[in-house]
C-alpha cells in the first residue's frame, strides 16, 4: 500500500500535465451559440432602418415559408464582406430580412447603396435589445427561420462563399 502511495504525487503531476497539454492543443472555440435554436422567435417590433425598406416585426417572419434573418450593422466590416454571398442567396430564391444593430438610418442607407440591398425588410435595433432577446452575440449573424417563425439554425460570423450551399440546404430543411 505504502509502496503504491509513493507514486501518487507523480501520477497526479502527470495527470495535470496531460490536462494542461490537452487544453493547450485543443482548438479554441469562443463562439457563443444562441440557446433559442429550435424555439420560436422572441416577439419584437422594430422601426424601419432604411428609407426604402419597410419595418420588421417578429410576426412578419412566420409566413409559412422559411426565411433568413440577417443581423448586420453599417459599421461592421465583415458585414460588408458577406454582402456578395447574401446577394447570391437572394438570387437562389432565399427571402432575406435584416436587423441593423446600433445603427442610424443615413448610415444604413449609405451602406446598402455601396454594398447592395438583398433585404425585403430591415428593422432598426438601436440598443441591441432584440439582438439580446435572440441570444445573438455579435454581427454578422444569420438565422434560418422556419415557416412557423421558429429559429431553425444560427450561422455565426460572415457567410463565406462556401457556406452558401449549406445555408440553402438549411432553408430547404426548414420547409
Amino acid at each position: 500500500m505504502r509502496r503504491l502511495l509513493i507514486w501518487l504525487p507523480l501520477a497526479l503531476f502527470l495527470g495535470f500535465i496531460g490536462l494542461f497539454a490537452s487544453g493547450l492543443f485543443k482548438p479554441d472555440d469562443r463562439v457563443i451559440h444562441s440557446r433559442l435554436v429550435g424555439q420560436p422567435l422572441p416577439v419584437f417590433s422594430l422601426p424601419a432602418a432604411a428609407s426604402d425598406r419597410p419595418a420588421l416585426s417578429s410576426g412578419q417572419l412566420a409566413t409559412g415559408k422559411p426565411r433568413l434573418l440577417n443581423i448586420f450593422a453599417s459599421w461592421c466590416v465583415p458585414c460588408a464582406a458577406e454582402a456578395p454571398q447574401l446577394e447570391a442567396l437572394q438570387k437562389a430564391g432565399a427571402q432575406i430580412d435584416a436587423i441593423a444593430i446600433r445603427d442610424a438610418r443615413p448610415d444604413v442607407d449609405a451602406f446598402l447603396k455601396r454594398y447592395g440591398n438583398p433585404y425585403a425588410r430591415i428593422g432598426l435595433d438601436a440598443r441591441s435589445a432584440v439582438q439580446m432577446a435572440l441570444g445573438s452575440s455579435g454581427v454578422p449573424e444569420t438565422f434560418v427561420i422556419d415557416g412557423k417563425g421558429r429559429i431553425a439554425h444560427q450561422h455565426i460570423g460572415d457567410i463565406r462563399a462556401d457556406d452558401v450551399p449549406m445555408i440553402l440546404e438549411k432553408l430547404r430543411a426548414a420547409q
Partner: protein
Amino acid sequence: MRLILLFLLMLFVTPLSAQTALPPAPYADRQIADPALERKAKALMETIRCLTCQSQSIADSGASMAGDMRSQIRERIMAGEQPEAIRSWLIARYGDWVSYEPTAAPILWPLWAAPVLLLGLGLMLLRGRIKQRKRA
C-alpha cells in the same frame, strides 16, 4: 494661418475605427437615481460576462454591446424586475456561460464537494500522524 486652420479641423475628425456612430444607450454609463436599485443593478452587472470581450464582466467592459446590456439591466431593474429573473433571462439565451455566478448544476457538484473531501483527507492524515507520534 492655413496650418492653424487645418490643425483646428483635425480636432473634429472622428476616428474611422469607432465601433459605432451612435451615442451610448441612456443608462450604459449613468447610474440609477435610487442608490438601492443602483446597488442591485451593479451587483448583477458584475456577474454578467461581456459577450464580445469574453474575460470581462459587462460592468468592466467598454464594448458597445456591454454598454447596451448595462443600460437594459438598469432599465429593467428600474421597472421592478428582480436581478435573478434578468440573469435567468440571459442564461436562457446565452447559456450558463454568460453568468459568472456559480450554480448548483450537477456538473459543478465535484467543485462544491472538493473542499469537504480535501478537509476530510487532511483530518485523516492528521489522525494518522498523531497516532504514529503517540506510539513513538
